[in-house]
């Protein structure tokens, strides 16, 4: 979230789209209820199903799954056509005036530079026109045909309310009513909060879904404002921590990149990471990249990383492909190229696309290690459970190791929530039986590998033998020891801005990091979480002195304990709050002061004209994103890879033209004739993924797998509520009970009525609930063009009435 949970109570309009906040986040949702009860806020829900969030909304609008960009680009068009912008904000704080170089364009659904064979773009034309002074050129009159504002107008031209009806099936009157409500927040005194989650990210154009709302929020001036923002509601309690620490295959901690094989030296790696300002005087904070990177290297390799060996750059793996994401991993496994897999705290058999492919891949591996506190289907992928897991056990040679781990209540450590708060928690009870903390298991594995390498040598032992391992007990590092490493500390006596810091002392923040090897820091954005004053994450003072929903001494937020990102944008260029009612910070003549840590140089005066978006080389927010996204600098409507309808705006294009799809998965895509209905998958309030089916109380609340269909589809198929139904796709087949409901209605789109089939997660063949299936038995192996997050939110299925599945009792 750019803002945070409690901030939502200050919103005047809340849009829940691309998520189901009440069901997925019942506790966080209290802030929406507060906003309605005490701020007269209005709640808008846009969703293929009328959810429990919709049940408390002021307006609900249906939408065909996978068409959010069409809807939101049409909102942008509405705002531009009706002049509902926060003009001063847009002019001063976005790149609306930047001129784009000649050669950039968009036609027939494609941006310039597309290579169909590679499914990729040559993005050379996606940049600003640079002037003789080396800076990007502007036209502040916004008339230049190639200025971003004019390009934006042109880009959203086709997205009329009529087009929304044709593509999304959303009724025009509902759409326009929503536009009016959204537009009401273009004035400084009113803000809108966008709450979204997997309903946007689990698409082959997920990143662009989010982008399309970001554009709306920038035009309205809602970024950096109280009750505003782009608010991603994360799933797992520490999924934010996972992404912050760079646990994606192509990242390093703190959102730095793992080098690729095209960057064989440290110099070649840094060459594209200078992030020089694109406008005079801008901060462009990523210019400090080398400080973050070198400090990280020192925390990884300790003394072994030196200036001479370029901070042990050679010891970092170099990516030979863009991403070793989960879909690639299973593609490799199926080809026999990945023969072992350590599965730590997830359940691929039920959560990765195309379960049949996952099962086949697991069956081919030599060994699989499952680290989990609970019994998972993955650990039992080889076991025949009748219809629920119809495998030939005798033919599977994979050796499966189960290493029981602690669960969160038996662990000490921090959890990073959606609000970017790092909250430290203690263990409530010790681990049962043989279960061990994940950290202990990983440390154990690491120490044994080190011993083996020392004894037997190997192809390249250096990175493993030289990992910095400064823990009191090598086989059992303590969470606080790791937290201190992540915060960062001085390696020798140093001086920062005149302040001396003794060797070994914890640092106060990333502002103290150096690129000369004198500081170490595991994750620069977390620097400040564990200082000389102690564990900031363990603080529990919930005083909110400004009555802004900001308790600055409750836990610790990254970065720098800042609670609302981009809060400089809450003031005008002169440093006065746009709205006194929504004041966050202000310039007092000498420095920035207020209720939150300013997201800006503390003493940088307004007359210096430094933009509020200090991470961007432009200094301003990007309506048009240059070459930063693989599939385009503007969001364009693309159909899902399996769709009941062709792309009206670009009929020749299937799916997202820049999404990667492996040949065997392309061959397994279904067509709308065999599979006429649009399925979507989602989560229920009563369960958390595949954990709570093991808990009796949760099982009582939602005992059995079901699918949801409209009364109309049920009537067509002769299905009555409670019947057994079979749902199948080009990849698999499942059985479920039918919930027949008014909450799903056929969507009247261009090609005719589109029926949505809703398929929830949570059920499998282990646990206390009745055995069931997951939607992943049916979904295609294709994901977002930027992140490879799989497309779980829309694909094609067929449905019929059937008999109950037959299980097989297993000892």
């Amino acid at each position, binding site marked *: 979230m750019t803002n945070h949970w409690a901030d939502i109570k200050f919103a005047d309009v809340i849009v829940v789209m691309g998520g189901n906040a*009440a*069901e997925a986040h*019942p*506790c966080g*949702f*209290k802030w929406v*209820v507060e906003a*309605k*009860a005490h701020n*007269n806020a209005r709640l808008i829900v846009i969703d293929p199903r*009328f959810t*429990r*969030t*919709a*049940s*408390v909304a*002021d307006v*609900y609008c249906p939408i065909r799954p996978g068409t959010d960009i069409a809807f939101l680009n049409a909102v942008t068009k509405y705002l531009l056509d009706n002049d509902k912008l926060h003009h001063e904000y847009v002019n001063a704080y976005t790149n609306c005036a930047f001129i784009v170089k000649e050669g950039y364009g968009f036609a027939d659904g494609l941006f310039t530079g597309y290579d169909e064979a590679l499914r990729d773009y040559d993005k050379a034309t996606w940049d600003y026109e640079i002037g003789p002074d080396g800076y990007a050129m502007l036209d502040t009159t916004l008339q230049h045909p190639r200025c971003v504002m004019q390009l934006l107008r042109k880009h959203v031209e086709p997205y009329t309310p009529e087009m929304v009806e044709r593509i999304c099936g959303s009724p025009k009157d509902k759409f326009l009513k929503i536009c009016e409500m959204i537009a009401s927040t273009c004035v400084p005194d009113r803000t809108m909060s966008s709450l979204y989650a997997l309903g946007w990210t689990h698409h082959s154009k997920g990143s662009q879904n989010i982008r399309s709302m970001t554009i709306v929020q920038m035009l309205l001036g809602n970024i950096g404002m109280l009750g505003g923002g782009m608010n991603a509601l994360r799933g797992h309690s520490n999924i934010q921590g996972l992404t912050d620490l760079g646990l994606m295959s192509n990242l390093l901690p703190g959102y730095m990149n793992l080098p690729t094989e095209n960057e064989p030296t440290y110099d070649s790696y840094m060459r594209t990471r200078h992030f020089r300002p694109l406008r005079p005087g801008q901060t462009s904070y990523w210019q400090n990249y080398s400080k973050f990177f070198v400090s990280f290297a020192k925390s990884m390799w300790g003394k072994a990383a030196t200036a001479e060996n370029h901070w042990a750059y050679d010891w970092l793996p170099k990516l030979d492909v863009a991403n070793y994401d989960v879909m690639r991993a299973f593609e490799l496994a199926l080809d026999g190229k990945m023969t072992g897999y350590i599965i730590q705290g997830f359940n691929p058999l039920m959560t990765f696309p195309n379960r049949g492919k996952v099962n086949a891949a697991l069956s081919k591996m030599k060994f699989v290690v499952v680290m989990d506190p609970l019994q998972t289907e993955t650990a039992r992928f080889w076991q025949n459970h009748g219809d629920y897991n119809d495998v030939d056990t005798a033919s599977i040679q994979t050796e499966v190791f189960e290493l029981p781990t602690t669960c969160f209540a038996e662990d000490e450590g921090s959890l990073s929530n959606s609000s970017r708060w790092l909250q430290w928690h203690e263990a409530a009870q010790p681990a049962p039986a043989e279960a061990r903390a994940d950290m202990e298991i990983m440390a154990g594995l690491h120490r044994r590998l080190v011993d083996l390498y020392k004894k037997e040598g190997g192809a390249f032992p250096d990175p493993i033998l030289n990992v910095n391992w400064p823990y009191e007990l090598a086989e059992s590092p303590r969470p606080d020891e790791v937290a201190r490493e992540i915060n960062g500390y001085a390696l020798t006596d140093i001086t920062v801005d005149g302040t001396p810091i003794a060797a070994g002392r914890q640092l106060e923040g990333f502002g103290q990091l150096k690129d000369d090897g004198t500081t170490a820091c595991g994750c620069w954005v977390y620097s400040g979480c564990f200082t000389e004053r102690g564990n900031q994450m363990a603080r529990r003072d919930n005083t909110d002195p400004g009555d802004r929903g900001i308790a600055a001494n409750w836990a610790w937020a990254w970065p720098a304990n800042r609670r609302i990102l981009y809060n400089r944008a809450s003031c005008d260029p002169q440093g006065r709050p746009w709205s006194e009612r929504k004041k966050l910070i202000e310039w007092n003549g000498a420095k920035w002061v207020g209720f939150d840590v300013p997201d800006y140089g503390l003493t940088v005066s307004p007359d210096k004209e430094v933009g509020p978006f200090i991470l961007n080389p432009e200094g301003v927010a990007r309506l048009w994103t240059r070459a930063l996204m693989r599939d385009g600098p503007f969001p364009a409507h693309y159909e899902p890879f399996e769709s009941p309808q062709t792309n009206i705006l670009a009929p020749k294009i299937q799916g997202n033209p820049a999404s990667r799809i492996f040949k065997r998965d392309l061959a397994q895509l279904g067509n709308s004739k065999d599979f006429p209905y649009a399925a979507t998958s989602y989560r229920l*309030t*009563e369960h958390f993924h595949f954990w709570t089916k093991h808990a*009796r*109380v*949760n*099982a*009582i*609340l*939602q*005992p*059995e*797998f*079901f699918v949801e269909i409209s009364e109309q589809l049920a009537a067509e198929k002769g299905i*009555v*509520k*409670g*019947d057994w139904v079979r749902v199948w796709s080009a990849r698999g087949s499942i059985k479920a*009970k*039918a*919930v*027949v*409901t*008014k*909450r799903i209605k056929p969507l009247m789109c261009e090609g005719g009525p589109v029926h949505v089939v809703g398929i929830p997660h949570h059920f499998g063949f282990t646990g*206390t*609930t*009745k055995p069931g299936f997951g939607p992943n038995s049916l979904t295609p192996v294709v994901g977002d063009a930027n992140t490879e997050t799989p497309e779980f939110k829309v694909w094609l299925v067929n449905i019929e009435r059937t008999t109950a599945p037959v299980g097989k009792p297993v000892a």
Partner: protein
Amino acid sequence: MTDYTSLDIVQRSASTEQPPTVRTKTEVAKLIDVSKCIGCKACQSACEEWNDLRDDIGENIGVYDNPQDLSAKSWTLMRFTEYENTGGELEWLIRKDGCMHCSDPGCLKACPSPGAIVQYANGIVDFVEENCIGCGYCVKGCPFNIPRISQEDHKAYKCTLCSDRVAVGQAPACAKTCPTGAIMFGTKEAMIEQADERIIDLKSRGFENAGLYNPAGVGGTHVMYVLHHADNPELYAHLPKNPKISPLVQLWKGGFKIFGLATLAFATIGGFFHYVTAGPDEVPPEEEEEAADAADHHP
């Protein structure tokens, strides 16, 4: 579940003794604001956990309601209703079902077992299972169809309004757990004030008939609802519009009881008098025979 002393009891089933009136207690109430409820079932979960209940794991019969009905082991239940309103818009009405803790409780009136059902001065109606004979009259007597008889011990069970928690100054488990504050707890007066605020807000959002459900027919209740459509409570999974104790129960425990007792008394007294006056005049058949024999044998 009585953690109260006898001084707190203001009514007791099947008893005619005058209850104590020396001690006073403020009436409490639980306010369920259906417009804030997101149907998450945390309340169901909290009730199971607090009361150490574990109901059976059922199956999905095509709805979100789980379990399908209240039971001796599920004292509260979210009931989901899909309603297409007069404007053609869909509403998903989700109501938390459970004991209403009536001021004039039908269960207590119908119960034939002394002290099996009690009402405290604060308004809570509690079952005292050790005095329960499992006859099921309370189920018939309840205008809301709430109490359920256990198959295991043949006692009646229902929501206790967490009388044990309230006795030590805590809110009921469901109220404490509710993530959106849809369930509030406090004095009845404070809850009515809360409700007034909520109704103003609902009316501003187009719910012209929003109101408080606190039915007079049972003397008012200590569990109240804020409803979007207070003019039509039946929409919410058959919440009765004008609940009152069934006239059968009223009669059975009222007029019929007096009539029955009077009949019993009359029959007893009548029988006594009949014996005293007419009984000794009757000659038993054996003596008749003996007399006939004696007459035959004496010429």
